[in-house]
């Protein structure tokens, strides 16, 4: 029997602001600007929103959405504090809410001043999920995800022979896609040589292995599939969606297998709910906080075996026109860092055939992941149902 939630909900609207480094707008203003665009994209009025899942911590809370959008009767206000896994995991909560009738239209949104506001090294210290890292790792100089995740990347290189050339391929292909998109922070071509010459941040991660600190907002609307069918845009349904939490979720250091993420659990459940497998995926938007994180997630998702993520991304396979185009918008590495909600927006646009120069031909089924904090994971599989 099909999963009770399969294709019961849809992404009915998407919206984003300009992605920049530098803005005078507040995070809340960026979040509301993107929200209004997503609502308009769906052909709805702000008055139709009855559920909100704002990214937390940072940005607006339910009270801000009521006050600014005049929401007449908010029936659900949720936080999903899973770092970069939040936005995709929030789709699961939203799908449950609209499928059961608790809500009609749920707004998931992010507004971020990651460049013009607090930078990564100070921001993270305030998160409860980072309390263990703050007590045991920050005093020895390990603060930032770039450092904490670098140890896993180094282990993968030592065990499987993964190289900086493999990392560079992800960075270069993602940049090519960003240039096709246009609404991106990084709009100049990147070569493998430039990647290798960029300064070391935390070995093995160089500057161009790391996602951007940028300003911007993003939002999506999740509606019941039967309602979304009558809205403005082609119907994109949620076939499968899942979140997963790894062992030792607040400390990578103490995890028995450093290369095991919450996505391991989420992907099994997400594929099962969707009733499809890796071979059915036409396009994938993979959470790219680091180049290496993309390689490892491709392994976990079953596109290749463990240890083969490096060779898998070579030879044009992940480019537009390749076997598995990934991060067709430029991702967090080159478009902007709105905690991966831009990945959901891009996948929706791909499936609606609205992706412009980066359009993947005949894309019908696509996959998007989230990866957050110390390894939380989330996955959604979407389908063009129109």
């Amino acid at each position, binding site marked *: 029997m099909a999963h009770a939630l399969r294709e019961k909900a849809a992404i009915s609207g998407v919206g984003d602001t300009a992605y920049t480094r530098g803005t005078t707008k507040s995070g809340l203003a960026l979040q509301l600007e993107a929200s209004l665009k997503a609502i308009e994209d769906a052909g709805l009025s702000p008055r139709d929103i009855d559920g909100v899942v704002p990214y937390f911590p940072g940005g607006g809370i339910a009270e801000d959405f009521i006050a600014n959008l005049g929401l007449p009767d908010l029936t659900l206000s949720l936080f999903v504090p899973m770092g970069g896994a939040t936005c995709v995991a929030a789709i699961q909560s939203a799908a449950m809410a609209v499928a059961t009738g608790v809500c009609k239209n749920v707004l998931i949104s992010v507004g971020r001043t990651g460049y013009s506001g607090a930078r*990564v*090294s100070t921001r993270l*210290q305030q998160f409860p999920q980072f309390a*263990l890292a*703050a*007590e*045991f*790792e*920050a*005093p*020895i*100089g*390990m*603060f*930032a995800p*770039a*450092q904490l995740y*670098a*140890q*896993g990347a*180094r*282990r993968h290189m*030592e*065990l499987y022979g993964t190289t900086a050339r493999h990392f560079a391929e992800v960075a270069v292909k993602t940049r090519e896609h960003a240039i096709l998109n246009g609404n991106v922070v990084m709009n100049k071509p990147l070569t493998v040589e430039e990647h290798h010459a960029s*300064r*070391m*941040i*935390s*070995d*093995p991660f160089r500057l161009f292995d790391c996602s951007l600190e940028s300003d911007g907002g993003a939002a999506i609307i999740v509606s019941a599939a039967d309602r979304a069918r009558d809205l403005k845009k082609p119907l994109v349904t949620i076939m499968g969606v899942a979140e997963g939490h790894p062992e030792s979720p607040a*400390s990578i*250091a*103490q995890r028995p297998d*450093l290369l095991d993420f919450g996505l391991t659990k989420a992907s099994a459940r997400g594929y099962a709910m969707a009733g499809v497998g890796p071979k059915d995926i036409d396009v994938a938007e993979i959470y790219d906080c680091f180049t290496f994180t993309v390689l490892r997630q491709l392994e976990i998702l079953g596109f290749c075996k463990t240890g083969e993520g490096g060779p898998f991304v070579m030879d044009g396979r992940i480019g537009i026109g390749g076997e598995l185009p990934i991060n067709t918008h430029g991702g967090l590495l080159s478009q902007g860092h709105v905690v991966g909600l831009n990945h959901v927006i891009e996948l929706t646009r791909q499936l609606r055939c609205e992706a412009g120069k980066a359009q993947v031909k005949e894309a019908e089924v696509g996959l998007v992941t989230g990866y957050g904090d110390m390894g939380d994971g989330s996955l959604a599989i979407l389908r063009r149902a129109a």
Partner: protein
Amino acid sequence: MSTAPQPAPLPERPMPVPTRESQAYWDGLRDGKLMLQHCASCGKVRHYPRPVCPHCFSMESEFKAAPLTGKVHTWTVCHHPFNFFFKAQSPFIVALVDMDAGVRINAPLRGIAEGDLEIGQRVTLAFEPITKDITLPYFT
């Protein structure tokens, strides 16, 4: 009085704030010992310190001195000092070590060149007093 601009003072080292759970671990480091939390019921070791044993759910535990030896699980070399307190000592190696006691410790590794590092290499925990109450670990 000089009006020349003064360089901004370097930030202070981020310091651990011991909790009711972790106090015995930090007291151990101060005394030159690696004190690890063991379940008083099933005996299993756990780190970082926490109130409940995830294996048998006992809330009773005791801290015991553990051997200081282990082998390298992986490492990173920190070049960009995300907190500029660490700028002067960058780049520095941080090794994640599988301690013989059965937990991992993440700490700076000194006296070994980056090019000589390999998984499985034997290292020993050492102690660097920072204040009268706080001592931080490192490996040699």
